[in-house]
């Protein structure tokens, strides 16, 4: 389906807030239109102990975006001598994407982290030109319509870490079963204060 550049490689990522924790999950498929090329493709990256980012959309742009983020984050860490806050990181991504407003990176990032000394769960998503969405329940990029429907039913703000893994995994897998361009396994990352 070459209708949208965002579904050329296919991917499904979701972030969710739990009790004292956040989760981010993705599928593992890398494909070129209908043809599956790899089943161990990484879409979620750890930026530091309390910050993960998932990059959905065109795979080449997602990888380049990750490398650019790594560059910015390394410089930040060297100069500030501390890790970046998830909220600052979201603003960083949003401005990096908007810089390319009229020739964008075809990436829709999702950010999950624990913010501040109280480790408050934080999630954020942006569209491909950097419009951020701050919610405190869940988020998933526009294409994964089915994912959103499933997740809404499972909104897990009361779940603790262990149950949370199950919830996220099941949401992702059931949504992914309905989308022929994502699947081939899943990775679920949960961040807790320890």
């Amino acid at each position, binding site marked *: 389906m070459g209708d949208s550049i965002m579904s050329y490689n296919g991917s499904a990522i979701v972030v969710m807030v739990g009790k004292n924790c956040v989760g981010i999950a993705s599928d593992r498929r890398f494909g070129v239109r209908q043809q599956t090329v790899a089943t161990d493709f990484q879409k979620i990256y750890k930026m530091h102990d309390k910050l993960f980012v998932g990059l959905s959309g065109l795979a080449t742009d997602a990888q380049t975006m990750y490398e650019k983020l790594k*560059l910015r984050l*390394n*410089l930040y860490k*060297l*100069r500030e*001598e501390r890790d970046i806050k998830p909220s600052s990181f979201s603003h960083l991504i949003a401005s990096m994407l908007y810089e390319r407003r009229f020739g964008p990176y075809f990436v829709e990032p999702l950010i999950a982290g624990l913010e501040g000394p109280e480790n408050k769960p934080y999630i954020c998503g942006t569209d491909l030109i950097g419009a951020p969405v701050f919610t405190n329940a869940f988020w998933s990029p526009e294409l994964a319509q089915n994912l959103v429907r499933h997740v809404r039913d499972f909104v897990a703000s009361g779940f603790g870490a262990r149950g949370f893994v199950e919830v996220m995994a099941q949401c992702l897998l059931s949504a992914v079963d309905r989308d022929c361009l994502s699947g081939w396994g899943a990775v679920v990352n949960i961040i807790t204060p320890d």
Partner: protein
Amino acid sequence: MARRYDSRTTIFSPEGRLFQVEYAMEAISHAGAAIGIVSQEGIVLAAEKKIISKLLDDDKSTEKMYKLDDHIACAVAGITADANILINYARVAAQRYLFAYQEPQPIEQLVTQLCDLKQGYTQYGGMRPFGVSLLYAGWDKIHGFQLYSSDPSGNYGGWKATAIGANNQAAQSILKQEWKAELNLKEALQLAVKVMSKTMDSTSLTAEKLEFATLTRPGDEVRYRVLTDQQVEALLKEANVGAEKKEEL
């Protein structure tokens, strides 16, 4: 006598000297000393802190030593403001390389880039040179542990042990006598303490006047560690150069 040839940085004097570059090096010889020693297990950097005041806010962890990338660190001697520019340049250069090649930049390449920048200020533009000398310590997979030093002219050299800043000739001659290839990290640290105690102006060495850092590679990752005040004190105590400054044979 040499007055006529000072004002322009980019011209030679009749004797073939670049006065501004020499004046820059003179500025550095008044700055706090820094030494680097290569050992079998890694590199030791030691530096003398010049700005000591209890009113000083501790926003940055170190005054003279900086991490340039995960595998490279440096110590500076000279005009701090100039040093900050160079450190920032080096950090960005290292990240640019990492972005392009997805692997850490070889140390000599980073040193060359910085030195080319410094050299530019001695040949073009009419701006004064940077009044900073740097010691670069790092590990890469091509040559292992390496120590380089560069000066305002843009010249650099690879060393097994070297010193920059105040009294660097005295420090250099002690290092020449005492350095050996079989030094381990602990011995290198002790040698650093010895050299600092002999070349620093102050009568007694305390942890607040010194900074020590080590660059090692315990497993697969390069580790840059700045010694805490307690660790420095323990080191000074072992070498017996505390408040009484006993002579050591």
